[in-house]
């Protein structure tokens, strides 16, 4: 396996890119997604793999400077493991070729020679100008030529000016084993960038879009909203606090003297290169009107119940209905399971009328490890969920 250099994506892919695969990073115009290819390149080089970078649009010198600035580390330390075919080679080929087929042969000869002489393991191709010079089939044939063994991996970056139809062509022709598209939600104001795992040939991962940010030279998948909801006194504030690297709770002392959430809990954490923001809803009935608003645009939900209080499950059913109305990925966490007289899995399922594919975790929200396990499973669930 070759890491994409982005832990969150590796997790979603089940460990990374299998050797010998052909991968496409397809970018919408204007989206800063160049770090995806560069992250994978640095990851391959760090693993000691020999890499060829085909850069028909620029010189290797400019590329090295750009990569160093974007990623915050120099490519010079990998000099023995990296070779380039760049704009100078393209100009030479363009000048010396009288026809497209002649140019095609010259490219194939050049790429094959470099790959063989340097025993290249991974080839990184910037496709756009090859596409323009040789046509789509011709450009893809260059990538094929670079496959000097079954284990040679090809990574392609492409500026997609043709939109979804081109992606559909790639999928229907099985041109790539993995297609990740990188887009941006822009309306009047620039909003956020996201990537989509559009297609994988080696697993049944559903197509999934995840927002991302770039920070400190890294692509960080970002889950902007996970909601923790459930009946009052189930332990939601404790859950959010223990899950978060930074967290806040808006509490007031309730009628029993215990603090109760009156607006929401809020927390932020970074887990396995995912940035996650958590929102805890208030559980008291008088705040029920807030819950649908807090659930809107959530990417996943933890329904937290008190495993020692069967009488509170009716309230939990109300929350469950709200979640199901929005068709959100959900996990049930049965809190206080370290106490005596807790309900069993089957009792909870029966009372909540839960489908068998919804997992139930028996936890204590006071234990960080339990809380993190729930979130870890929910992130997996979010990235695999079939809507």
């Amino acid at each position: 396996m070759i890491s994409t250099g982005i832990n969150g994506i590796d997790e979603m892919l089940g460990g990374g890119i299998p050797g010998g695969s052909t991968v496409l990073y397809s970018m919408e115009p204007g989206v800063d997604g160049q770090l995806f290819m560069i992250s994978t390149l640095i990851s391959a080089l760090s693993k000691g793999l020999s890499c060829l970078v085909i850069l028909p649009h620029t010189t290797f010198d400019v590329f090295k400077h750009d990569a160093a600035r974007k990623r915050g580390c120099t490519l010079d330390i990998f000099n023995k493991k990296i070779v380039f075919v760049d704009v100078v080679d393209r100009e030479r080929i363009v000048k010396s070729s009288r026809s497209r087929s002649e140019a095609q042969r010259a490219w194939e000869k050049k790429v094959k020679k470099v790959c063989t002489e340097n025993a290249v393991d991974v080839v990184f191709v910037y496709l756009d100008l090859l596409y323009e010079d040789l046509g789509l089939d011709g450009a893809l044939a260059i990538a094929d030529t670079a496959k000097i063994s079954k284990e040679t991996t090809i990574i392609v970056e492409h500026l997609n000016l043709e939109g979804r139809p081109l992606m559909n062509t790639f999928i229907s022709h099985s041109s790539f084993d993995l297609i990740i598209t990188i887009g941006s939600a822009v309306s009047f104001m620039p909003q956020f960038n996201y990537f989509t795992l559009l297609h994988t040939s080696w697993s049944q991962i559903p197509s999934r879009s995840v927002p991302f940010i770039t920070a400190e030279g890294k692509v960080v998948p970002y889950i902007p909203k996970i909601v923790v909801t459930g009946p009052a006194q189930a332990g939601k504030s404790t859950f959010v606090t223990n899950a978060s690297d930074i967290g806040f709770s808006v509490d007031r002392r309730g009628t029993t003297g215990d603090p109760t959430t009156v607006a929401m809990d809020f927390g932020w954490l970074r887990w396995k290169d995912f940035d996650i923001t958590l929102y805890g809803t208030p559980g008291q009935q008088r705040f029920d009107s807030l819950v649908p608003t807090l659930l809107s645009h959530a990417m996943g939900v933890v329904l937290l119940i008190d495993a020692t209080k069967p009488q509170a499950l009716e309230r939990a059913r109300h929350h469950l209905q709200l979640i199901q109305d929005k068709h959100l990925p959900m996990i049930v966490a049965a809190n206080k399971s370290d106490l005596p007289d807790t309900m069993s899995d089957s009792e909870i399922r029966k009372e909540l009328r839960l489908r068998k594919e919804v997992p139930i975790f028996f936890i204590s929200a006071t234990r960080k490890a339990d809380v993190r396990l729930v979130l870890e499973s929910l992130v997996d669930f979010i990235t695999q969920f079939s809507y």
Partner: protein
Amino acid sequence: MYNYKSGITQIDQVTGGLEAGTNFLVLAPPMSLAEELAYSLTRPLTGEYAIVLSTNDRAAEVIDAFKVMNVDKRYVGTIDAITKSSTPGITDTNRLMFVASPTDLTGIGIKFSKMIELIFDGDFSDGESGLFPPPVRFCVNSISTLLMYRKLEVLYQFLHVVTSKVKKIDGVGFYLLNNESFDEKTISLIKQLMNGVIEIKIEQNLQYFRIQGLKEVSSEWMKFSVQKGQVVIGS
């Protein structure tokens, strides 16, 4: 809806300025005042911002051209597609960004989006803030150069994205194209992406322009010159 003053009385008095979200092709022969006219139209007024994509001149030359017009440089950004090939180590700032070459449409798109984002975030002008939502004037100097490096179909698709973005942010765009170097088909294809065409001609060493696409403005030829960035009609 915001209106962008063109600085040309004959246009501004009739229309109140160029409508937000519109794109104009500046079609001109070589050796004309096309660049001066386009820069004059791109000049940001108080509270506005300007972005120039330069495929012909270095960023320093673009900034100098705006300095002549007494423009506060904190409101002008340049995407330079020239300098980097000779100075690979040159680094971007918030208002000066560099792409590998005019072939690098990926880079151009990214830098354009970045500048827009910096303007919207208020990080563009050294803490100074303009109007909000920010009015942005955008100039491509020139499509002619881009066409020398990329195929028409590709460039058409790319410009479609760029002009749509200008429209989305309620900006105004000016795109220079040499009308003597390209055939009718090329020019008419590019025209399809525009809301109007500003055409320049030279006769007996005098320069004329006309605007097509602005309803209230006559499309008659007007003699003009540009003095310190100001378009002067009839001189």
